């Protein structure tokens, strides 16, 4: 396991000269199209001047009109077409406008794109990236707010990756495009406007960060100059922001010292960095925005249980309900800083 250490100040969540996640992803797509003529983009409404529902593809069709293909509203066919292009040595990147629509591409991912390489005895490669915005918090209601990535975790041959503000989302996307196998790239909608975090010199609230792995790193954050911490918070994507705020609150108001383990690759995944943190804290709280039952946290807890480690573990996730449109209802359904703090306190008492 490769480990790099650096320090980050969490106030950089708010005022920052750093590029946003959106800019980072957009730049990565520019660069991919510029440097590799096998790269094609396919998606709905991705042409300029509109540039995609969340503007991730803005400016690309103007520069690369031959390789940025706006499509009919045909999610299954778009991913199927891209899969065929990938089999014939192109490198397509598909945008699915809302993550909720991944149910429409399930057959193409599960029975086609991810099966070809193994089923054809490793004689083919399918360098396909499917990017899609997931997540709530925008009041989009039951069919435009979900985090459905859990349905695709554990699909053989599929890598599921989720950027966050700590790593470099653009680099993560570039790495996905460079893969020879299918990648489902999950972008939380609320991340788009967030600036990337910036390493800085520190004070008490500084976290020392270990980076495990290069391509899709797992980050382990520990409060600097602290000998022991007593709770591990594991998460991915946008929820990292909630987890950081909860960790600060727990530190300032309750003197509970947290470590944070932030995953970039959800499936398949390496449990080692988390196991390592848990050996120190013996308490784990997983935080995800997908529904609780049979979700990401459930598999994490199962792996840890199988490892034989003695630890107390809980999960924070969305309620097993559709996501409501009304703000108070949506807030009640999705994870929040408050829910994370409450769960952490309950766990800490154990």
């Amino acid at each position, binding site marked *: 396991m490769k480990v790099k250490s650096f320090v980050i100040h969490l106030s950089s969540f708010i005022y920052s000269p750093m590029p946003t996640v959106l800019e980072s992803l957009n730049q990565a797509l520019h660069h991919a199209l510029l440097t590799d003529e096998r790269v094609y983009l396919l998606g709905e409404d991705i042409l300029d001047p509109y540039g995609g529902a969340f503007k991730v593809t803005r400016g690309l069709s103007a520069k690369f009109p031959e390789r940025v293909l706006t499509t*009919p509203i045909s999610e*299954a066919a778009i*991913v199927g*077409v891209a899969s065929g*292009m990938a089999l014939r040595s*192109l490198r397509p990147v598909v945008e699915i406008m809302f993550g909720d629509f991944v149910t429409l591409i399930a057959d193409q991912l599960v029975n086609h794109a991810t099966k070809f390489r193994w089923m054809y005895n490793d004689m083919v490669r399918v360098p396909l990236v499917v990017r899609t915005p997931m997540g709530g918090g925008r009041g989009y209601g039951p069919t435009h707010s979900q985090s459905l990535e859990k349905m695709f975790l554990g699909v053989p041959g599929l890598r599921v990756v989720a950027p966050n503000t700590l790593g470099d989302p653009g680099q993560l996307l570039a790495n996905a495009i460079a893969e020879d196998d299918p990648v489902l790239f999950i972008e939380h909608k609320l991340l788009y406007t967030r600036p990337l975090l910036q390493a800085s010199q520190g004070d008490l609230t500084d976290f020392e960060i270990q980076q495990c792995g290069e391509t899709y790193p797992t980050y382990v954050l520990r409060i600097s100059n602290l000998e022991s911490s007593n709770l591990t918070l594991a998460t991915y994507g946008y929820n990292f922001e909630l987890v950081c705020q909860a960790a600060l609150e727990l530190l300032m108001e309750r003197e509970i010292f947290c470590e944070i383990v932030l995953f970039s690759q959800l499936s398949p995944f390496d449990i080692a960095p988390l196991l390592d943190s848990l050996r120190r804290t013996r308490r784990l709280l997983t935080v995800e925005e997908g529904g609780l039952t049979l979700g990401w946290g459930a598999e994490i807890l199962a792996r840890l249980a199988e490892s034989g480690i003695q630890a107390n573990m809980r999960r924070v996730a969305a309620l097993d309900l559709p996501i409501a449109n009304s703000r108070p209802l949506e807030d009640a359904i999705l994870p929040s800083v408050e829910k994370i703090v409450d769960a952490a306190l309950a766990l800490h008492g154990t």
Partner: protein
Amino acid sequence: MTDNFALYRIMLLIRRFEERLLAEFSTGKLVGTTHAYIGQEANAAGIFSVTDAQDVIFSNHRCHGHFLAYGASSPQGSDPYRLAAELMGKATGLVGGRGGSQHIHWRNFYSNGIQGGILPVATGMALAEKVKKSGQIALAFLGDGTLGEGVLYESLNIASLWNLPILFVVENNRYAQTTPIELAVSGTIAGRFTAFGIPTLERDTSDVLEIQAAALEAVGSVRRNGRPFGLILHTNRFSAHSKGDDTRSAAEIARIREKDPLLIHAPRLTDAERARAESEIAAIIEDAFAQATADPFPKMKDER
């Protein structure tokens, strides 16, 4: 273009291969299921007599006939042995025993067992050949049963919209497993293509020469115009959908068996030619199955 003897020989290869395959199930050498192409041989023989060896083919669950005809039309020749080995789950199979009957890949030939799902993939392959300016076209095979799958229509729309060089071959054997077409398909098959501005050619025949002529026109249209085309072949499946799921009456099966592509084409050969084809094919089939039977099973690799 392939001559009468070669066309007969390919059809006979498919017929005898599938017959042997069905027989091997009773010996326990084969497990799982299979979808025999018996009765439809003229389609594959006719079509692959006019395609280019570098064209890209996506076939479906009933792929053995397509594969054998594709192989026979390529300069390297056919490979019934490796198909037999694949069906027996042997390490020497086309895909090392991982795919079996419905999931094979060899050179530019691909198949998958999901109805409809292969069609956008084939459409994407046509797009890839187009942008690479390879001059090759894609061929996708579907049946009347696949007409119920929505992704077909997404694919036809995109293929037409983007001017993609793909030939959709509909083999209408009038039954989706056990469901007759009258209970599953409204309107016309051709109407489904013309709705998207895709021209069609429709034949109701088991004569390989008629199919060859239609395929020549269809393939030529795709290659010349760089546009999709629908070749609709009304055909007859003599055996069950897979195994033991035939609910048709004996009278109906006897009636369709009169349209046997081998019997229709046989009079164009001399007795000596037919005898030669029979003995050559018998030897090839015997060798293929004997060798495949003797081959080892694959070992599980450590995938982690």
